[in-house]
């Protein structure tokens, strides 16, 4: 059976070409049709592949090689695509959620200039994202990896006349390039160790050397983690994601929440064979994950821009996924990746609906009382909020619980990080309900009384409703079923009954987690449920801590002062003035001095302009020939 895997990315690419080249001249309806039809067709192909997988009629992994890409010396790289259970999950998320967000965009972007440009970029993003998850080797994965970065750059800078948008796009690309630097070094190390970049061949290489532990594998894993931290916005490379909110809101939903930023998690899960042999690298991943989860959640507590709260929340949730990977719970991490794609896309799109309804207002302090005016948005957002807060039976509860449970079982480090995760869960529940109460409850705090909040059109609400349903039911299959489906790729999931503590421990942890989530909710209700001075009082009581959070720990300023500024100063003064100004220029003068001296001698015979130099050249050549002839004669 031929699945035509290569068509899955190529279809959105065709959409990109059509809209990118002709979109300006096409009517809006045609642009929308093209932009929606191609991703939908890709989704159709994915559904067909899924049917083949679920019916069991397909041997996995299923590999398709389209042709050879690079053949040079010992290096042979193919355009080859592979389908296995992990890729299938990713494909379904990307094309499914991706299509819904395309649909939403039709309404959201309807009045924007550059409508065609927006959709061509969005299709281009899908192309690269699909390549990323379908690739059978690291280099092809890197094509998608850098490509989604490009699409992200273009879409963050969509409103390019705003300086902040252009700056944010540039920052995202450059910070991601720092991650890519690590990814490249990881690939070089893999080439040095295994002589290939193919996933399956590296798997064979690993199987042939069971004694190979740590050492070079730790180096490879850590390099790859640098790449993953860039793409998945983890400490220390998370700084680009909050700024990326300059892009249109559906872009934040698709690229900066549901799909692209999960690429780092996907990459670690995909190459877990290497990580499994390096406990040190895994510990690093777990610590980065838990640290980022808590760190970002604290910043989210005090943000007033609705999209920035969600951005820090995304960073924090990605931290959970890293924590999952770091404790070897790859299935749980991917499970959370999936449920997060549902509820975070929902939250962003609902936030977009609010922003749309308020004519571009993003400040939570100027919202309020939207419950009645935007009922569908209100109810769907409620689904997203309870899902992320971890309240059963919504999706987020199951996946977050799976990660925390496995962390708890993972030695001393894991147990410590479990408590970090638990604290994060408390904060998460608090800041999400804070957002919810500020936006939808109480009285309207808007200055703009002429612009009446209105509910969004159905092209926007339909995706919200579908995602709300997915946020509700997306987790009920449970980690057992999900994990056993992925087990051929990610290894078996430990059965809780066989672990120390058994089922009782699992239930205990579950109840603790739910209790924590409810505690966060109640606290938020207490502070933000109705008009109250309490938040302001708390902030005034601890001004130091409040300032630290509002200023996001001054990390951007720190990077600017420690890295960017010094680099510019060194380039400008040490390289520019000393290197170029003194050394290079000096040697040029020296040369010129020698030449002028020679020129002075020549000037006695000639005028010294360039055209007569050519005459001299001819004369010189003749002289040389005679000289050479003389030499020949001498040699004989």
């Amino acid at each position: 059976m031929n699945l035509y895997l290569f068509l899955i990315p190529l279809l959105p690419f065709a959409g990109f070409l059509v809209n990118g080249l002709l979109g300006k001249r096409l009517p809006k309806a045609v642009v929308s049709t093209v932009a929606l039809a191609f991703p939908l067709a890709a989704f159709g192909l994915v559904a067909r592949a899924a049917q083949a997988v679920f019916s069991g009629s397909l041997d996995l992994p299923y590999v398709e090689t389209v042709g050879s890409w690079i053949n040079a010396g010992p290096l042979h790289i193919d355009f080859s695509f592979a389908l296995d259970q992990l890729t299938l999950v990713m494909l379904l998320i990307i094309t499914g959620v991706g299509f819904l967000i395309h649909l939403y965009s039709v309404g959201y972007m309807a009045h924007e200039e550059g409508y065609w440009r927006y959709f061509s970029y969005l299709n281009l993003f899908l192309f690269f994202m699909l390549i990323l998850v379908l690739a059978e080797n690291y280099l092809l994965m890197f094509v998608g990896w850098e490509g989604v970065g490009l699409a992200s750059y273009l879409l963050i800078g969509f409103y390019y006349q705003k300086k902040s948008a252009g700056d944010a796009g540039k920052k995202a690309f450059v910070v991601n390039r720092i991650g890519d630097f690590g990814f490249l070094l990881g690939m070089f190390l893999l080439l040095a160790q295994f002589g290939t970049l193919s996933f399956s061949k590296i798997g064979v290489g690993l199987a042939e050397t069971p004694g190979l532990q740590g050492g070079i594998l730790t180096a490879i894993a850590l390099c790859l983690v640098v790449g993953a931290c860039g793409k998945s916005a983890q400490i220390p490379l998370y700084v680009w994601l909050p700024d990326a909110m300059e892009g249109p809101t559906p872009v934040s939903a698709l690229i900066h929440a549901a799909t692209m930023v999960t690429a780092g998690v996907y990459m670690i899960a995909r190459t877990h064979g290497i990580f499994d042999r390096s406990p040190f690298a895994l510990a690093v991943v777990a610590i980065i994950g838990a640290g980022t989860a808590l760190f970002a959640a604290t910043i989210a507590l005090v943000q007033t821009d609705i999209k920035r709260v969600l951005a820090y929340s995304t960073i924090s949730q990605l931290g959970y996924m890293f924590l999952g990977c770091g404790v070897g719970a790859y299935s749980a991490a991917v499970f959370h990746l999936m449920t997060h794609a549902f509820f975070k896309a929902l939250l962003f799109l609902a936030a977009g609906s609010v922003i749309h309804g308020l004519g571009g207002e993003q400040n939570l302090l100027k919202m309020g009382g939207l419950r009645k005016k935007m009922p569908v948005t209100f109810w769907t957002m409620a689904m997203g909020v309870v899902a992320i807060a971890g309240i059963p039976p919504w999706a987020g509860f199951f996946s977050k619980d799976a990660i925390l449970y496995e962390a708890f079982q993972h030695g001393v480090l894991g147990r410590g990080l479990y408590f970090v995760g638990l604290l994060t869960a408390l904060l998460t529940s608090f800041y999400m309900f804070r957002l919810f109460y500020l936006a939808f409850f109480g009285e309207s705090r808007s200055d703009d009384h002429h612009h009446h909040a209105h509910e969004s059109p159905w092209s926007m609400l339909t995706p919200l409703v579908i995602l709300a349903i997915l946020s509700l039911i997306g987790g009920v299959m449970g980690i057992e079923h999900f994990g056993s489906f992925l087990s051929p790729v990610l290894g078996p999931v430990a059965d809780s009954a066989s672990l120390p503590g058994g089922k009782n421990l699992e239930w205990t942890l579950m109840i603790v987690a739910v209790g924590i989530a409810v505690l966060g909710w109640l606290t938020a209700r207490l502070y933000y449920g109705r008009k109250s001075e309490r938040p302001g009082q708390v902030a005034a009581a601890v001004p130091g801590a409040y300032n630290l959070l509002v200023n996001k720990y001054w990390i951007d300023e720190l990077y600017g002062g420690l890295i960017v500024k010094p680099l510019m100063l060194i380039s400008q003064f040490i390289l520019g003035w000393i290197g170029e100004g003194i050394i290079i220029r000096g040697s040029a003068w020296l040369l010129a001095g020698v030449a002028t001296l020679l020129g002075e001698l020549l000037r006695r015979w000639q005028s010294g302009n360039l055209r007569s130099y050519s005459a001299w050249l001819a004369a010189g050549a003749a002289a040389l020939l005679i000289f050479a002839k003389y030499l020949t004669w001498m040699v004989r």
Partner: protein
Amino acid sequence: MDSMNGIILSLILIAPLVGAAVILLLPEKGKLPAIVALITSLFTFLCTLHLPAHFNSGAAGFQFVQEFTWIASPDIHYHVGVDGLSLWLVVLTGLLAPIGVLASWNSIKERTKVYYALFLVQQTAMLGVFVSLDLMLYYGFWELSLVPMAILIAMYGRNLTENSSPKAALRFFIYTFVPSAPLLVAILWLYAKTGSFDFATLQVAIGTHAFSTAALCWLAFAFLVAFAVKVPVLGLHGWLPDVFSEAPVAMAMVVAGKLGLYSLIRFHVGLFPVQARQAAPWMIALAAIGILYGACLALVQKDFWRVLAYGTIASLSFCTLGIYGFTLAGFDGAVLQTINEGVIGAALFVLLGALYERFGTSTIANYGGLAKKTPALANLFVITGLALVGLPLFNGFVGEFLVLSSTFTGVSKGWAAAATIGVILSAAYLLSLVQKIFYGPESQAVIAYPGKDLGFREQLVLWYLALIMLGIGICPNILLNGIESGVQQSAGYPTLSEQMKSNASSFVVIAQEVRKGGK
């Protein structure tokens, strides 16, 4: 068409000269010289395409060879031929000539006869460098390529009134001419010892230890310096920023890179493998530092020609790094990257030239928010820029990846890692440039601008180049097969059997890697 094989290279060399003669004979009326130059260069380009169409990458030795004695004493032959190494460089030179003519179309308004005639002579000289297999013939073309360049910069530069163009021309002339003198002495010395200027003969003579080690060191050094200046390698690049700022676009796009890099591979590494290996650690260090140095300086320039100049130093350093790593994939990557740099650099010169033509300034601060008025220009600039920073599926990525990965796995992890930092810096300076020129609020100059986007002529050239960048990026094997045969055939070259026995020879190493690669 096979019957053409024997004379095709001569045809390629003579065609531009004939065109130059025709231009000089015709009156200087309107666009006439430009039209003749365009027809000539297109014809030459078509002829160069004959080469890859009929090239046999399985065969050993040079192909399309033509040889006859030119001057009996001294023994100078007219001996031309190409192998995988030079094949695509000849095509690249052919490709860039019509683009150079189109880029000069409006910007050169006076003394067009002299301009286009010299342009075509320069064309012959560059092609001659790539196909000459007789060292004296090669040297003739090498020198010939410098003279029209210097004259064109001096006569047609951007800032003739301030006298900085003639100054840049003089600096270029001095920088390249002075090291050419020791090169000539070295070639003549070799002739005095062997009685031959023939490349293959000399290769064997040197390989069979006909000379003292000290002598070879000096010879190799003379060759190295002459070529390294022309690349330019870090430290010898003093002429480049000025030339980029002053030279007419069509000249600037061919002045750096390919001639020097090709000569390094063919005549430094090819003739003096032992000495080249001794120089390799220095060259690798210079290359890796050059990548960072160029990119850092590009980051802080206020003039866009200078951004391009320092960016070019960085990209060319990748080629040097590949050459002196002495790995097969590295050589492949270096030659491929030389071609990439030619294509991408040409596109960037056309783009920046278009900006300069419209606004009359190269100061970046005068620009801002241009994307709204000239979307095509902005899009093509971004596309070309992405190729420059090595985005995968563009040509730049393949070359950089081959060079960096082979350096890392086969030469030095430290230098390779340092050079890889270049991928971060190149993105930083390129995106900053895009940001300052095209994004953000509109500057005074841009508000005053009536808003003419790229014309048909410019779009044609730029889309064409963009397609080539993508084509090479997606199917690099089309080029790599030929290039690799050039490196491999040197290993299997029959007259080199003696040299194969010498352990230190670069080709032995390459040959070994070829065998390893087959597994």
